Structures are given as C-alpha cells and as structure tokens.
C-alpha cells in the first residue's frame, strides 16, 4: 500500500468502511478483517500495528459482549464488534501506509477539496500522536509532584484538571506558534504547488477496479 497513490489508499479505506456498513453477517465481516490483517502484513506494518490491533480486538470483544444482556442476538453482537474493528483497522492501515503531506496533496489536487480544509484534516490527524505524547509527559510531570488519581470518581474527575489544564494551555500556545509559522511561510496564497508525487499508476487503477468489483459483489450478495 506504500506504493499506491495516497488517494487510492484513501478510497480503499472509504470502501472498506462502506462495505462494513452494508454487511451484517459476521462471516464476511471476519473475511474483511482478515483481508486488512493480510494487507498490514504485506505493507510491513505488522510489528508497528500489532499492539493497537490487539487492543482494538479487546475493545471490540467488550463491545460485542456488552450488548448481550440487552436481548441482542449473538450474531448481531459479534457483527457490531467486527464492524467497529474493521472500520478502525482500515484507518490505522491508511495512516500507517500513507504520508500526510501526500494525502493533503491528493485531497486538494485530485479530490478538489480546498487546501485549507485538507490541511485542517491532515493537521488534526498529525496532532493525535503529538497529543498522546504530550498527555504522557504531563501525566509524568504531575506524578513526580505526588499526583495520584483518587479512587473516588468525583474527586478523580476534579483531579484531572491537573492533567487537562496544562495540556490545553500548551495546545493553545503551540497552535498560536504554528499559525504564525504557517503565515510566515506563505500559507493561504491563491496558487500553490505540491512536491509530493500523487499521480495514479497502473497498480492504482488495478486496485480501483478491484474495489468497484468488490463493491458490486457486496451490494448484490449482502
């Protein structure tokens, strides 16, 4: 997938999500999940994504089990868990195999989305790992000052201020710095170019054809 055009990867993710929405039988959903896992292995991302996928499988399992006391049929509960997992893994696969600047360029040049919106989308995605790292750093800093979350849920909620406030203040400060940095580098000019190679090649057209065929199969036989 690293060799595919960014837009092709995005379309693959979208179509995996569409198929997931259309399907309600656990077997084809499990097949889709298997396909994603094969793609992860093929893309050489198995080591990187093993832990998140394992974590997701636990959440999906919990999601399925928690529905059972509410008279939801077992196949439906399993399908719900699988749906959540297939859709999430599809996006994990996209972000593990597609560089965000390439995705921005594809959204603007090929999907004709205004640059500001495409940039907003990819910046928000880029912010997620930063946010997690920052959250870890703030938690460690406060723990070294004796912070331990209370067992009492109300006190625990209140004590989260010690983590949330520094993160929000830092995020505001960083967004201001980033905004200035962007302005100073010509962000928002009417005409622009991209250095990323996003053109479609033969393999991309092959994948798009397979996606169309698979969509037809799913619509006809779901």
């Amino acid at each position, binding site marked *: 997938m690293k060799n595919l055009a960014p837009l092709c990867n995005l379309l693959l993710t979208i179509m995996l999500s569409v198929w997931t929405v259309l399907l309600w039988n656990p077997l084809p959903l499990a097949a889709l999940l298997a396909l994603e896992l094969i793609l992860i292995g093929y893309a050489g991302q198995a*080591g990187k994504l093993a832990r998140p996928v394992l974590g997701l499988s636990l959440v999906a399992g919990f999601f399925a089990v928690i529905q059972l006391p509410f008279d939801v049929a077992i196949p439906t509960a399993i399908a719900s868990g699988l749906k959540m997992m297939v859709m999430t893994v599809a996006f994990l696969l996209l972000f593990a195999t597609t560089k965000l600047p390439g995705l921005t360029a594809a959204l603007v040049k090929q999907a004709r989305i205004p640059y500001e919106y495409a940039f907003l989308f990819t910046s928000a995605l880029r912010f997620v790992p930063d946010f997690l790292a*920052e959250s870890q*750093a*703030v938690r*460690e*800093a*406060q*723990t*070294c*000052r*004796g*912070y*331990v979350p209370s067992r009492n849920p109300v006190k625990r909620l209140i004590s989260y*201020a*010690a983590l949330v*406030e*520094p993160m929000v*203040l*830092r995020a505001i*400060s960083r967004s201001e710095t980033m905004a200035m940095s962007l302005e100073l580098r010509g962000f928002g000019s009417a005409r622009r170019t991209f250095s990323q190679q996003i053109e479609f090649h033969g393999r991309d057209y092959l994948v798009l054809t397979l996606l169309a065929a698979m969509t037809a199969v799913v619509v006809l036989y779901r």
Partner: protein
Amino acid sequence: MLDIQQVSFAYPGHAPALKELSLTVAAGDFIGLAGRNGSGKTTLTRIMVGLAKPVSGQVLLDGRNTLQCGPAVMARAIGYVFQNPDRQIFRDTVAQEVAFGPEQMDWSDNERTQAVADALRMTGLESVAAAYPRGLTRSFRQRIAIASALALKPRLLILDEPTSGQDAEEKAQLMSLLDELNQQGIGIILVTHDMELLLAHTRRAVVLHQGEKVFDGQTEELFAATTATKVSEWGLRVPDVAAVAAKLEKPLGAVRTVEELADRIEGRLRGDEREKPGAPM
C-alpha cells in the same frame, strides 16, 4: 542514600539503553550527569524516580528496594524537575502552583502552608507568590518547577537540562540557586550538555556513553589532560577554561571558572616576574 545496582533497561524494539549500570549517590552530592543524546541519561534519571522500571538490577533508597514504588511515592525523597516547566504549570498563582504537591500528601494545613512558604523562600519566589505563573519569564517558570519539587521536602533533586532556553544571566541565577540548595544539604543531579556549567558547579561528574558509565569521579578530573581526548569521544566538549589551563606550557591543573583561571595566570605572572622575567607561563 541512593544505590543503583547493575541496572539494565531497554525500550521495546531498541538496543539496550542502559547496560548493568551501577551508581551510588550520597546525601548532599552535587553530580553532573553528562553524555551525548541517547546515551541513557534521561532513562537513568527516570529509573531513579520510578518513572521507568529496569529490566534487571535494583534501585535502593536508604537500603530499601524502590522497584515497587511509583513516582508519586518517590517524590517525597527525590524531586524531579523536567526540562519544560510548562508541562506542569496550570494554577492561577505561583503559591497555588507550588502547593499542588503538598496537597497530594496527607499533611496538616500548617505543614502544607509551611512547606509552600519554605519552597518559595528557598527559590526566591516570595515576591511573585501571587503572580500568574504563565505570565512570568521562562527563568521564573523553571524556578516554580523547582519550588514545586522542593515543597515535598526531597533530599535529592534531579534536574533535566534546567538551563535550556535561558540567557546567560538567567543561567547564572539558576545555578546560583542550585549551589545554595546544595549548601543546605539537598543533593543535586544535574543532567546537562553544558560543560562550562558542569565544571563550574558540580563536584562529581558521571558520564554515560552508549548506556554504560564510562566516567565517575571529580569533575575537574573529567577535563584533565589525561581524559580530555576521551571526553571528545564521548560527545562532550572540553570547557574553554579547562582547555586553556591545559594548553599552557606549564599546565595550571584543575581550574573551574574564567575568574579562577585569570587569578591563577595573574598569580603566576606575578611570581614569574619576581623570579625570571619573560619565563614561559
């Protein structure tokens, strides 16, 4: 006070960050911890305060194994000051910010108030106790972080690059504060890349290289002519004063600051003038 025995650590999927490292920290030590980026300095200090658990080996605090203690427990004995103070500051006034740690402990009102007052006094922050912390300079914010750690009355303070982002005067003030704290009996471990500061202020230097301790001794010895070549191999820079002192035809021996170097040279000049004018320095 703190005894690190044969500690090894590795991040998942990476080469070992620490390899069977042992280190003893005595009460009241002033240690400079140096080494190039990735040498294991931060990993070692994180293990000391319980933020990371070693793969093997043990950390003893006053003879008691600390591996089961989290950083919140260790904070009572070892204060940790991060490089970026903004990651912890969140309250409306400096005094409230410093009071955060004591509030986490089961202390009486009097004990808490006294701890905050002591920490503000020790760090020279009494005049800004009611100020909004984020509105103060980086130097002040770093002092607030130090005061926050001191409020828990630790016996050892670990500071990770505390002078980064500060001008020369601010650095001097901060180092002067650390000297004062050390004179009051608080042990200091200073993680730094600034060899001038290391030489001028610390009494003991510990150098890590590729996860191993390659030097542990008096700071002056680290920059003595015999080890100077190794210092470069370890990714460190010999401070100018030490380099000049070693380059003289008759080396001056251990010199810590520019003032000390000037005094020694002047002293020698005066002596030489009396003995033999024009003699080499």
